[in-house]
Structure formats: structure tokens, C-alpha cells
């Protein structure tokens, strides 16, 4: 139907078609797709095998579909910052400052939603200087076995900012230290398994992917991704 969308063959999630549901997306992504270039700008390879227990769960962005509306920020913030109204605990009003997914805008128009990549080799946890707990084996920063999300134990965290620095220099810079305490914030919680950003994105630009992951991360910064997308979209030879 839409000439523009057909034309852009190189998409960041190059297996997703616009009409496909999340279920179909998952099927396609997870089943036997060796060396699938998904999210090609920052993840080099994905090997997913159905039989094995998933080790990886994350939010993937299709930059081609993102319009930069920031609805994701508001629903993330609302879900993860609940408020008590009378006896009830309800989602907050969606102040985007407290969102774990953050959209960065560029000129020419490119919008980069940034959220924790849940990196398999987790440089943030590697950088955490807190001694592992003898019982759980966890540092202050650890991967939660159930949700597979990266979490911080605020009691044990010393607020040194090493994790944020590691994320910023080696990956995308999703972790932001709290300006007062220095403790890491903005790590994706995956919303207890039902990511609100995926659910509410009006443009279907986000997907929740569960599987096994192998290979290396490119580790591009937000600026580098923006530059690549700008070239790909606006300054591509095909446009001439």
C-alpha cells in the first residue's frame, strides 16, 4: 500500500513486516534464524534455538516505524512509578523524566528510543565493584533470573557510577546515574513480562524479544546510530 515503506528494504528489524503481529514476529525471530541481522546497528548476531531455555529478553526498536512521539516514555514512567490513591496502587501520570526508555531526537529527523539492551556480556555488571554476595553470587548490579532484566540492589550499591560509565562508553548509554545518589537508574524492568512501551506504541515500533543470544554487540552510541540512520534514509545514493 504505502510506497515509502515498500521502498525501504533495509530496515533495522529486517524481518518484520508492517502488518505482522508480535506473535508472528517472535516466531520468525526465534525459529532457526541463524546469523539473523536483527537490530543490525547494535547487535551483530543472534542465534536463537527454541529447545533451549531463553537467556535473553529485551525491547527491540524498529527505527523505521518510530515517529518520535514518546508515548513509550509516558507509559513506561506510569507503570514503573506507581502512586497510591486511597487504598489503591495505580499507574502514575507518565512524567517522561522517570521513564526507562528515552527518545533522543536529531535533525535531520531521526528519533532514537534508547533502552537497556540487556547485553549478554553485560559490561555494566562487569564494571560493578561491589563484592558478589556469597549466598546469591550477586553484585549490587545483577541479572534477575526470572525476568532476565538487569537490576540494582540500592542497599548494596555504593553509587560509584561505574555501571553507567561502562554502558555509556561500551554500549548505548541507557543507564543514567541518579544526580543525587549516583545510583544507576533507567534500567528496563520489562514491566513484569508485559512491557508497556510495546503494548502502547501507536506505531508498532517496539517488540519484546525472548530467546538465546550469541555474538557481539557493536556498541554504537546514540549519535553513531543517528548518523547511520541519517545516511541510510536521507543521504543514500538510492535517493539520487
Amino acid at each position, binding site marked *: 500500500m504505502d510506497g515509502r515503506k515498500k521502498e525501504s528494504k533495509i530496515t533495522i528489524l529486517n524481518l518484520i513486516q508492517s502488518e505482522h503481529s508480535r506473535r508472528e514476529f517472535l516466531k520468525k525471530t526465534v525459529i532457526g534464524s541463524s546469523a539473523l541481522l536483527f537490530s543490525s546497528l547494535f547487535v551483530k548476531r543472534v542465534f536463537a534455538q527454541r529447545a533451549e531455555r531463553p537467556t535473553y529478553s529485551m525491547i527491540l526498536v524498529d527505527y523505521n516505524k518510530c515517529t518520535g512521539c514518546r508515548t513509550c516514555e*509516558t507509559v513506561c514512567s506510569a507503570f514503573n512509578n506507581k502512586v497510591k490513591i486511597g487504598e489503591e496502587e495505580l499507574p502514575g501520570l507518565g*512524567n517522561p523524566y522517570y521513564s526507562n526508555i528515552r527518545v*533522543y*531526537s536529531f535533525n535531520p*529527523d531521526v528519533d532514537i528510543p534508547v533502552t537497556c539492551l540487556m547485553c549478554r556480556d553485560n559490561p555494566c555488571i562487569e564494571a560493578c565493584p561491589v563484592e558478589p554476595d556469597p549466598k546469591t553470587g550477586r553484585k549490587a548490579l545483577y541479572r534477575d533470573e526470572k525476568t532476565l532484566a538487569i537490576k540494582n540492589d540500592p542497599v548494596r550499591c555504593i553509587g560509584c557510577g561505574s555501571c553507567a560509565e561502562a554502558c555509556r562508553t561500551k554500549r548505548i548509554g541507557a543507564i543514567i546515574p541518579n544526580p543525587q545518589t549516583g545510583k544507576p537508574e533507567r534500567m528496563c524492568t520489562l514491566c513484569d513480562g508485559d512491557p508497556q512501551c510495546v503494548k502502547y506504541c501507536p*506505531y508498532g515500533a517496539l517488540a519484546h524479544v525472548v530467546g538465546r543470544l550469541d555474538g557481539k554487540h557493536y556498541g554504537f552510541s546514540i549519535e553513531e546510530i543517528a548518523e547511520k540512520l541519517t545516511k541510510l*534514509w536521507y543521504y543514500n545514493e538510492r535517493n*539520487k
Partner: protein
Amino acid sequence: MAEKLFGYNGVILEIDLTSGKVEKKPLSPDDARKFVGGRGLGMKILWDKLRKPGVNPLSPENPLIFMPGPFSGFPIPSSSRTCIVTKSPHTSPVKSKYPYASTISYSNMGGFIGPEIRFAGYDGIVITGKANSPVYIVIDDDKVEIRDAKKFWGMGTDEFDRKFIEELKDRRFRTCYIGPAGENLVEYACIINTAARAAGRGGTGCVMGSKNLKAIAVRGTKIPPVADHKRFLQLLEEARNGFKGTPYTENWRRYGTASAIISSSDAGSQAVKNYREGTFLDADKIGGISAEQKIWIRDFACYCCPLACKKSGVVRTGPYAGLVHDGPEYETGTMMGANLLVSDLEGLMKEIYDVDDFGLDQISTGNVIGFLMEAYEKGYIDSTFLDGIDLKWGDVPAILKMIRKIAMREGIGDLASKGVKRLSERIGRDSYKFAIHVKGHELAAWNVHVSLTQGVCYATANRGACHLNGHNPRAQNLNAMNDSLGLCRFAQGGFRQGLIRELLSAITGLDWTEEEYLKAGERIFNLEKAFNYREGFRREDDTIPDRFFEEPLTVGPRKGAVLNRDEFKKAMDDYYKERGWDLITTKPSAEKLRSLELEFVIKELK
């Protein structure tokens, strides 16, 4: 303890650029209830600040008021608008005892800065005074700084947009700014954000330039309180669902306003050849379908908007290949395209880019150039008058030269920077018949021959000719409310009947019945009208150019369409009666003003 004000931060930020003084003034709960926010509350603040008529709009005294509304900052679909209110530098009455008499001006823009002003803890920003040299303002939550902007003065909006965010060192700042046109005090200069979204109309950028203010940057961490949290969340869910998968949403996403370039041309309601015609035979060459194939790459949305009507693209062929910008939309494509008989889509993109980059209003610029083209064609002016430019219909390079002259106010550009009213006064003869303005403000891209109520809409708009005014008092009152909430007009149709009011009630805790809602809109409209009346605007100012009564359309499906003067006069009589305004002077009656709780206005209107 003071009563808690729900739906508002309760603070108006006031910055005086002359002294550098920054004040945080409490927002009066009574004003919030009566004037809501955005356009309405901005008007009330303007009224309070300008206590006498005839203030020079370019004097330090004239406040420049940035107003989000009570919806701003909440994730309600398409609540992204900021209304900028000031005294217009571009309108004038037929006669008045005040040399600087002008109307109010309001102009709103989408993007992200309206919500961000609320996140920073304010319900509005009022800027007065004039800085000694170019400055910009940074608002970082409670911290407000005025910084030197000399190195940015003269910079186009596209380059400035990129350089400024680098200077601020955080992409989470939201910015808006003027281009060279605003710095040079072109009367119809605009304020731009994200290098393309504009508060285009009414010369807000000219007032900003007069204050030596290049830009504003805002960043915040807060959000205002709502009265009924649970109800608000329910209504929010309903509002979001209302946009899902509907043809309404799909059409906006696919074409934005550009779909109207062809439909309006087919209906004979497009501004074509300086409003001489209503149908552009080449409309398909510049319309949404062509643009989709040849230019557009991606859709972009304002804050929490499910419609994404902004189409960004790139010019792929011809002398402007490689140019990246958004458009054409209906207004930009019609005013810089159809109205100038430009059918070269790539050339049109370059025009749109240049107009935005200089920080000019696309509508007034296209109207002014169309007027000059017609005067040139008719031999009222020659190329010497135009500094040697051979300004023929459809000639893109000539148009580009003229755009530059206007923005820089060079040669003929100086006079053209004052709009078609002043141009026709200089050119003389019967050129006033095709100087397409009301109160000095140029008409927009909707032509009038085919619609009497479109004429009433333009004639009665408080900022001078305005296509968004509304075709009757009820529509005008509703629109005034819409502009006061911070909600986008394009999204209105996606809300269930009554849902907007219910959201406002849940946010503010006040019971917004339909009656109260319409009354508030009427109150806002009447306060604007009272301001204009005090300046000296009368019934003779509420008219539309002769062209629409005297020159029937000669092409298209509506060939022969023309308005009838008697019918127009009667429609205007009916309008004033319904408004409760005097038929001869248009003065709002004291009882009307009293019924709208505008007692403070009565003694000001002699």
C-alpha cells in the same frame, strides 16, 4: 492553606529582558478557571499587562507569552501545542486614534516544548523588556539563565537547531527560536522548533526579535497534579483506544494535511494564483500522492500523537537534490505552490525549506509573493520596482530571490516585509482589490469564492484573517477552548463527543459541563474582541477583499462561483446578533460581557 490547584503547576514564569529579572508569579485559580490556559490564559495575561490601547507591539512593553494548557504534559493523544500570545506587529485598523493600533495575536505550534514547560514547573512563560544584545534563555526546572547569543545571531533555523542543542549538551532540552526574518523584524516572522514546526501566523517571531531574543530552551522533571487520578487514567485509555486503527488515523498518518491539496482543489476552495482561482490544474503534481512517491521518507509525530502528520523527506532530482526537509503540507504546499502556480514539487520543497530556514510565515510569504506576481503581471509594477526580479507565475528561482529579499529586508523586501496591505497602499490604483488580507493579516490557503461562511470565518477572526477561526460563533468558541487546552486541532475528530470535557474535569476537578465549556470559549473570544475594539477596530475592519465578490472563478468544477455582497452583509449581521455585539460598531454589549464574567472589560470600552 491555599486551595490546591489541580491540573496546573500554579506558577507563571516572568522574565524581564531589560533588567534580567526573573520572577515566579502565582497563577490565580480564578484566572485558570475562567481562561483555562493556552490562548485564553495568554489573552488574560496580555490584557493585564497592557493596560492601555495603542502600545507599540515592538516596544519592550509588549509581552511575548508562551502558553501550554491544562492538557500539556499529560500523555493525552496530541496534547503537544503551545500557544504564543502577544500584541500583533502585523495588523492595523482602517482608522484609529492610536498610531500603533493592532489586534491581539496568537499562534500555536506542536512539537515538545509545551509539555516541557509544564515539566519544568510552569503554566506559562511571559517575556517582557528588551535585551541589550542578542540572548537566549535556558530554563532548567527552577533555574533560569539568560545567556549571550551573539554568535548565533543571523543563523538560519536549520543550522541553529543543530548547533543550539550541541551547545546545551543535552538532547532532552526542548527549544524554539527565530531565524533571520525575526531578527530583522519582518512583520510576519515566525517562531520555529525542531527546524520545521512553526508558530507561523501573526508575527510572533517579529516580537521575539524585537526583544533581542534568539531562542528559549526548556528542560524539566516535574508534572502537575490531577484531581481525579483514577478517572483520568480511565479516560486516557479510552482516548488512546479511540485512535486505534480508524480510517481517521490512517489518513492522517499517510498523507497528513497534504491530502487536502487535491481535495480542496477539486472543491474549488484552494488559494490559486493569488486567490483568483479555487482550482489548481496541476494540484496532483504537488499533492500528497506525488510527494509520497517522490519526496517523503518518514512520518514524525509531536508529543504523544498517534497521527504523525509530519512527513520528512529528501529531494532526489534537479538542482535541489539532497535537500532534506518536511512538506509539502496543505498550507505550505498551497501558499508556496498552488497560489504561485508552482507545479515543480522539488522546487516547492526548496521554497518551503528556505521560508522555514529564514523563519518566515509560509502563509503570509506565499500570499505576499502571489500579490506581487499579480501586480507585476498586470503592469502595476515593473521589474525595477522588484529590484530586477522577473517575478513570473511559477518561477521558482525568482520566488527564492524574493523570499531572501523579504527575510533580509533588502530593497523591495523591506516594503514586502510589511505585508500586502502596505504593498497595495504603495502600489495604489485598485490593487487593494487583490491584496488578500483582513486587518492587514494575509489570508491562508482556503479560498473564499465557494463558501460564504469561510468569508465570515476570515472576517471575524481576532488575529486578522485566520482559517482556523471557525465558521460560526459556536465553532469559534469551541476552537478557542481547544487552543486553550494545548490540544491539537487535527486530533479533535479522534475524541468521542464529550471526552475532551470529561478529561478536563478529571484533571481540574471542576465540573466542565457543555454549557460551561462553551461559555469559557465565548469568554476568551470576547476578551480578544474587546482588546481589538479598544484599539479601534470596528465593523469596517471585519470584511474580506473585493475579489471574492467581483471576480467569479473561471476554471474547475466550481467555475462561476462568487460571493454576493448582500448575503455576506446579512451573514455578518446575523453573526453580530448571535454574538450580542452592536451591529454598527461591533462593540460587545455590557450585559454580554457581564454574563461572561468580564466586568473588568466594560469600563475600558468607550
